[in-house]
């Protein structure tokens, strides 16, 4: 039953998203109601699906049985909690979005409809990823989540900055998606998460580890791929609350949780996670204190707190999975709520800069309560769910030694400092921001709901501990370190402006733009190399092909002299005559000065070849050659006739070449081809394959072995060939149109 509930969590939002997109714009109320209904159903079903946690209930339908692929869901602790959280945050974001969008997207109903459709589709995709039983299905949903994410970040597509941010997010996370696909392929189609025996072959562990780290770090906006997340803050606030705190960036952590049990013993994996986590915590500590805007601060804090999770997964290995999962839940509740607060402040004051905000404590008291509780949760203050969860992370670090414990404590202190900055600046600083409009109850209730959930789970942690399999142990040393971190964070309040200025000076070091620019520079270098190689000069390509053929043949002949043929089979008089004709025709092509003569000579060479097959007991092959040769000759004549009418392009005048070059290249390539052909004909294969094909053709009940090979035994090759054939026609049509336009 739990598995069927999981199917509902995936399918209902997807279907709802498609339906919302199909509804007319004037039915906006219906679209909104549909979105809320779908989100509520998904939440109820996700709650129900948690019942399957203990048994790991699985549902699978064969997809491509030949490859061992199936479609299905698997309800385990990580998947169920993940999907539950996504459903809860999604519902909160959608409730909040009603009044928020009414103001921010006023008069743009098509964007509002896109918003609801994309949010629903996104929720379904992420739930599908959460319940995915294997890496390939995870990849499918991972990429499905990327498309609505792109649409949502770029919702304000008049704004060039929004378009840029959306494209960057798509490129970075898309590159990670390709890495994940490679992981799925390396793990094999029958690999299942949660399996015990199916550990990847040891020689594949290193590439799997590296690729999975790239995939997880790009999706979770981790160092050094984090630059896309602060940019993505151009998205409307409900999008940030849903995608950039709970759902999209969490997919990377989900991947880490899924693969940790299999890669526990791989040093590269553990060290990579630690490095990514440490880098992310460092850049976030500075970035969040330097960020000039509310949402930018939260984006960096998300980078840093996901950094905690990568760090802990690296330090503690798979044994830390329960702690990682528990903190993931705590963080998602807190951070999505904080995004809602940030959106409400901007909604009320039309300001997003922290420096321009202040004095809101009296005028937005409800929001102050929500902000304080949520920030306390994210910082790990006692009585919130963040406390127990963070203690769990700290215990893992402390278990690894004093240095990791101190590093983690330092990161926590910075987190406390920037979270205090988030609350202190807008609510308490002396700058007075005027209230333009009041964010109403429909906006406040989701934020308070999330903070209440954080409080309830903090006071009664049993359900979370049970579900995540996480059992915190009270330890005075952890409590001491946490207290120290919080105290340092609180103390920073005294010197906040100085810290902000210091952090702002270091901003360009941590914003990740350098990594992105380096990647772009690398791409440009590759592109310029490709342009140099693809010069567009056909003779150059032919020369490269000819030289490569000759060089390869000589290499093979030198490496394996035994393959070089000795004696030629006897040649009959008829064969010799036909061969002489072929050679004469070929020579004529080489020496002819007129195109038509070359074409005719080529046709003669081809027909002579057909005659060779005819006298060698292969009349059907001869027939095919005659047909093809005829068609080719007609095409050559037509092409030559057209070439005459196209004026030579002056800029592409061929550079002067020594006279011996072309004959030398052509001669050596021809000689190499000749040697290869002789070697192929005279070397007796160890096991002739012809008899096998004859036998198999007879068994099929067919009589024509050529057709059987083309259609049945090598059908995929044939399919590839006809595709290439079709592509070549496309090229000819394109060129013919270009020249028709150019001469007109």
């Amino acid at each position, binding site marked *: 039953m739990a598995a069927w509930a999981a199917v509902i969590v995936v399918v209902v939002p997807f279907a709802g998203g498609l339906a919302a997109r199909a509804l007319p714009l004037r039915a906006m109320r219906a679209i909104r109601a549909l979105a809320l209904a779908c989100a509520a159903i998904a939440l109820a079903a996700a709650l129900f699906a948690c019942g399957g946690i203990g048994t790991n209930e699985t549902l699978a339908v064969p997809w491509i049985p030949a490859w061992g692929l199936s479609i299905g869901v698997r309800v385990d602790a990580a998947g169920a909690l993940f999907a539950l959280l996504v459903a809860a945050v999604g519902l909160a974001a959608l409730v909040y979005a009603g009044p928020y969008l009414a103001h921010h997207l006023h008069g743009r109903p098509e964007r509002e409809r896109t918003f609801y459709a994309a949010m629903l589709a996104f929720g379904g995709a992420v739930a599908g990823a959460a319940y995915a039983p294997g890496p390939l299905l995870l990849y499918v949903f991972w990429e499905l989540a990327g498309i609505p994410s792109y649409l949502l970040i770029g919702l304000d597509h008049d704004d060039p900055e929004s378009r840029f941010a959306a494209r960057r997010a798509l490129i970075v996370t898309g590159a990670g998606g390709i890495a994940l696909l490679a992981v799925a392929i390396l793990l094999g189609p029958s690999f299942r998460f949660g399996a015990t025996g199916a550990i990847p072959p040891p020689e594949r562990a290193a590439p799997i580890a590296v690729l999975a780290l790239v995939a997880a770090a790009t999706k979770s906006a981790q160092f050094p791929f984090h630059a896309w997340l602060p940019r993505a803050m151009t998205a409307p606030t409900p999008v940030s609350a849903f995608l950039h705190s709970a759902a999209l960036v969490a997919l990377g952590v989900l991947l880490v949780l899924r693969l940790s049990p299999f890669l526990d013993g791989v040093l590269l994996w553990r060290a990579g996670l630690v490095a990514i986590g440490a880098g992310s915590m460092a850049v976030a500590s500075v970035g969040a204190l330097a960020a000039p805007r509310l949402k930018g601060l939260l984006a960096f804090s998300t980078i840093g707190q996901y950094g905690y999770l990568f760090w802990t997964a690296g330090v503690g290995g798979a044994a830390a999975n329960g702690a990682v999962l528990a903190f993931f839940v705590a963080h998602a509740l807190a951070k999505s709520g904080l995004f809602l607060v940030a959106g409400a402040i901007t909604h009320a004051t039309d300001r997003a800069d922290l420096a321009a905000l202040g004095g809101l404590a009296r005028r937005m008291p409800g929001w102050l309560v929500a902000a304080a509780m949520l920030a306390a949760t994210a910082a790990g203050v006692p009585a919130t769910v963040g406390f127990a969860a963070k203690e769990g992370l700290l215990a893992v670090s402390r278990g690894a030694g004093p240095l990791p414990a101190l590093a983690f404590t330092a990161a926590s202190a910075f987190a406390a400092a920037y979270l205090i900055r988030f609350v202190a600046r807008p609510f308490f600083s002396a700058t007075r921001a005027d209230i333009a409009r009041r964010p109403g109850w429909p906006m406040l209730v989701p934020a308070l709901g999330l903070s209440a959930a954080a409080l309830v789970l903090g006071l009664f942690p049993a359900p979370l501990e049970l579900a995540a399999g996480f059992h915190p142990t009270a330890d005075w040393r952890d409590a001491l370190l946490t207290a120290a971190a919080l105290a340092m964070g609180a103390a920073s309040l005294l010197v906040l402006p100085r810290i902000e200025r210091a952090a702002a000076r270091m901003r360009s070091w941590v914003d990740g733009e350098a990594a992105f620019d380096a990647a772009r520079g690398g791409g440009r270098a590759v592109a310029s190399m490709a342009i140099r190689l693809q010069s567009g000069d056909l003779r150059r390509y032919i020369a490269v092909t000819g030289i490569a053929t000759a060089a390869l043949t000589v290499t093979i002949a030198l490496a394996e002299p035994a393959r070089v043929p000795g004696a030629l089979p006897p040649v009959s008089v008829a064969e010799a005559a036909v061969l002489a004709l072929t050679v004469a025709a070929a020579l004529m092509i080489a020496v002819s000065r007129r195109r038509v003569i070359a074409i005719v000579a080529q046709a003669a060479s081809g027909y002579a070849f057909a005659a060779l097959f005819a006298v060698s007991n292969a009349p059907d092959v001869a027939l095919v050659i005659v*047909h093809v040769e005829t068609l080719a000759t007609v095409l050559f004549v*037509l092409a030559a006739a057209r070439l005459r009418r196209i004026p030579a392009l002056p800029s592409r005048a061929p550079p002067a070449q020594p006279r011996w070059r072309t004959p030398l290249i052509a001669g050596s390539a021809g000689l190499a081809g000749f040697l290869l052909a002789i070697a192929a004909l005279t070397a007796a294969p160890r096991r002739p394959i012809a008899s096998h094909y004859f036998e198999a053709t007879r068994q*099929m009940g067919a009589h024509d072995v050529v057709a059987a090979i*083309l259609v049945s035994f090598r059908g995929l090759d044939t*399919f590839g060939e*006809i595709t290439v054939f*079709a592509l070549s026609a496309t090229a000819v*049509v394109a060129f013919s149109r270009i020249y028709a336009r150019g001469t007109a």
Partner: protein
Amino acid sequence: MSPLAIRTAQLTLAFAALVALSHVVFAESWPGDGFTAGVIAALGVTLQYVVFGPGRVVTRFRGATRARLVTMGLATGFASGMPGLWLGRGFLAHVTAELPLGPFGALHLSTALLFDVAIFLVVFGVSTTLVHHLAADPSPGGRG
């Protein structure tokens, strides 16, 4: 354009079409298959271009566009590969079935035949496309 040339071109096209049909239908039994069928039929059409010129042939073949033939061919080829995949034997592993026709014996059906039809459509469509575009007059006012 002599009457003899016209008659010859028309007869050749009809004959080429018949031969092409036989090559596709009897691909498994006799020499010849979808590929030769496509080339032979295209040769028949090419003779039309030689005799009548590109302008006239275009009007005669307006019904089925060449691009559509190629697309249909690729789609048919892809579709003919799916039953094998579905039955767990792999893409393009051909599946056969006997359709009993009572007193007329049985009809031997195979996705291999469908694949031959696909090859024919692509080869014929591409060849005629090449002929058409290379034969067309690109000069100003010409039919390009």
